């Protein structure tokens, strides 16, 4: 069984808590991405699973066995490092061969295995070279080849694509996904790039300050962010987060004061308890649509800055309270700086967060 389970995983360095009570489980064939800003504890979590970092509290189980006390070489895992960590004085072939030594294979079997993965990752031509003589993309593929050459309990990737350029990143993302889907192993990928997480993962764990803020499918974390942090972190361009005050709730419809504007939204029943309190409205940039006249669910502002993004245009709109609204418009919709826009919110893509930042549902 190839599974990873972490229970109440905690890591402290002196008085600093790097990881706090992380609970997650990765099933067979599942890819879980740990996503978060730098220093959020995602790499430390991965290193604890790998055994490269001791566990302060909690439990790591791989394949159903508690691994806390086992050194990395006894955990039967494969890991790809951010800087590839290829052995500099050993040829690429030798690098890929390294994990096979302790399996007791004959030289011929080892050679065959190396040739097999070299073909999958198109490394046949560079097997004789030293790591220093390879391009970044080739190094990356060699690191992946070294990980998949044997049959480990699980795979761990630490920022696997961060050193590649955009184009290589795209193609490697696809390649890694393809290779992993054929192996049906529990896999954990650490990344700070949400595109990487959204495209490669079955589930995403979003971390901040050592804690998991939300864990769910790419669709869930995007469409139902649990709190303001997740809402602001996932999605590009970033979600508009506006401070407001809930005035009244009537017939499931709330009147919310957003500075000069006030809008009327349908809200869940739970919102009734929040009358008179401050809250945050989250509106995706693609959920704002210019309309001809103001309505009870529209915001008004002046176009400040226009950033063409190819198929779409990112428009920065400044409202009367000097708040910057990001709006994504189709390319055909032409706007000019200084133009006044009335923006209607798509209610299906609008989120309400209470005083403490939790989503109201």
């Amino acid at each position: 069984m190839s599974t990873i389970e972490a229970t109440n995983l905690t890591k402290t360095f002196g008085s600093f808590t790097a990881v706090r009570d992380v609970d997650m489980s990765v099933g067979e064939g599942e890819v879980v991405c740990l996503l978060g800003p730098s220093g959020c504890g995602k790499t430390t979590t991965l290193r604890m699973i790998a055994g490269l970092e001791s566990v302060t509290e909690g439990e790591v189980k791989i394949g159903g066995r508690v691994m806390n006390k086992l050194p990395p070489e006894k955990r039967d895992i494969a890991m790809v490092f951010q800087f590839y960590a290829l052995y500099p004085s050993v040829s690429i072939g030798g690098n890929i061969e390294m994990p096979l030594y302790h399996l007791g294979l004959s030289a011929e079997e080892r050679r065959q295995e190396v040739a097999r993965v070299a073909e999958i990752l198109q490394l046949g031509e560079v097997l004789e070279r030293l790591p220093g003589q390879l391009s970044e993309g080739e190094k990356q593929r060699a690191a992946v080849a070294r990980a998949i050459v044997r049959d480990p309990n699980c795979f761990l990737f630490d920022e696997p694509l961060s050193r590649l350029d955009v184009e290589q990143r795209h193609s490697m993302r696809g390649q890694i996904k393809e290779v992993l889907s054929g192996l049906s192993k529990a896999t954990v990928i650490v990344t700070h790039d949400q595109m990487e997480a959204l495209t490669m993962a079955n589930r995403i764990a979003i971390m901040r300050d050592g804690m998991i803020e939300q864990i769910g499918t790419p669709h869930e974390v995007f469409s139902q962010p649990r709190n303001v942090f997740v809402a602001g972190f996932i999605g590009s361009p970033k979600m508009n987060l506006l401070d407001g005050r809930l005035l009244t709730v009537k017939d499931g419809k709330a009147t919310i004061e957003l500075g000069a504007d006030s809008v009327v939204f349908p809200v869940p029943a739970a919102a009734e308890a929040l009358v008179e309190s401050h809250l945050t409205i989250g509106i995706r940039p693609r959920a704002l649509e210019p309309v001809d006249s103001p309505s009870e669910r529209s915001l008004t502002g002046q176009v400040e800055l226009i950033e063409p993004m190819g198929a779409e245009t990112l428009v920065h709109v400044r409202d009367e309270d000097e708040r910057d609204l990001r709006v994504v418009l189709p390319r055909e919709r032409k706007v000019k700086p200084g133009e006044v826009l009335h923006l209607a919110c798509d209610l299906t893509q609008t989120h309400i967060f209470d005083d403490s930042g939790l989503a109201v549902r």
Partner: protein
Amino acid sequence: MSATDKKSLAERLGLKVYSGVGNAGWGRTLFAAVISFIYFFPVFWIILTAFKTHNDALAIPPKFIFSPTFENFVAVFSRAYSAGAAAQDTGFALYFFNSVFIAGTSVLLALAIGTLAAFGFSRYPLRGNDTYLFIILTTRMLPAIVVIIPIFLMFRVAGLSGTYIGVILLYTAFNLPFTIWMMKSFFDELSPDVEDAARIDGSSDRRVFFKICLPQVKAGLAATAVFGLILTWNEFLFALLLTGVDTRTVPVAMAQTIGGDIGVRWGLLAAIETLFLIPVIVVTFMLQNHLLRGVTFGTIKR
């Protein structure tokens, strides 16, 4: 014509060719040549003197043009100690062997022990690691003359005086602090990820050290070996007091050659020195490529 078309024979043989001037331009090249000649001149003069007769060596003004002779080199190994007497073996063959054996063994020993110790200090730091490292270095802070009497007495009591083991042990201990400090800084520079990767790939600590770390610090080993070798090879004071007749090294024997019935035989001394220089030059040239990397290690941000 492109640069690749006019490859010289040496280039085709895979030898490195250093073109005369390069990017520096004639002025700077000339300047560098003058400076290096000033540095090299004493060595040049020793080599020149080694091929002179006694009279040529003492001639004033100094002679640059003379008819070279090998008599000094013959005299290094065999000569008559007084006028008219038969030529005798001087024992210098043994002294050269002693120098090579003692310096070589102690440098290798120091490298073996020091590299392991350095890896330990770098990877498995103790509580108060730096203090231990400092204490190790303090053994080199005293001038040799201060420690020579206690060491001499210790060697007498232990029966190590005049033995190979005694001198080798002493020189090993002498080279160790430097080796540990040098090698530790090399190990510190290595990427810890690579070792983590090796562990995850199932390598034991021993395998990580020998297969992964050691090949990466070759340059450091070379640099440390050369520095240790030069230090040990030229060491005089301890060798003078602690070697016996059979274990005498060349610097001591050289000192004892000074004097005699016709004054200092400069030609003979120069011949000994010339021979004495050869092993160091050979080793340094052999390790030159590593050496340069070793000395500049860590100065360039990767």
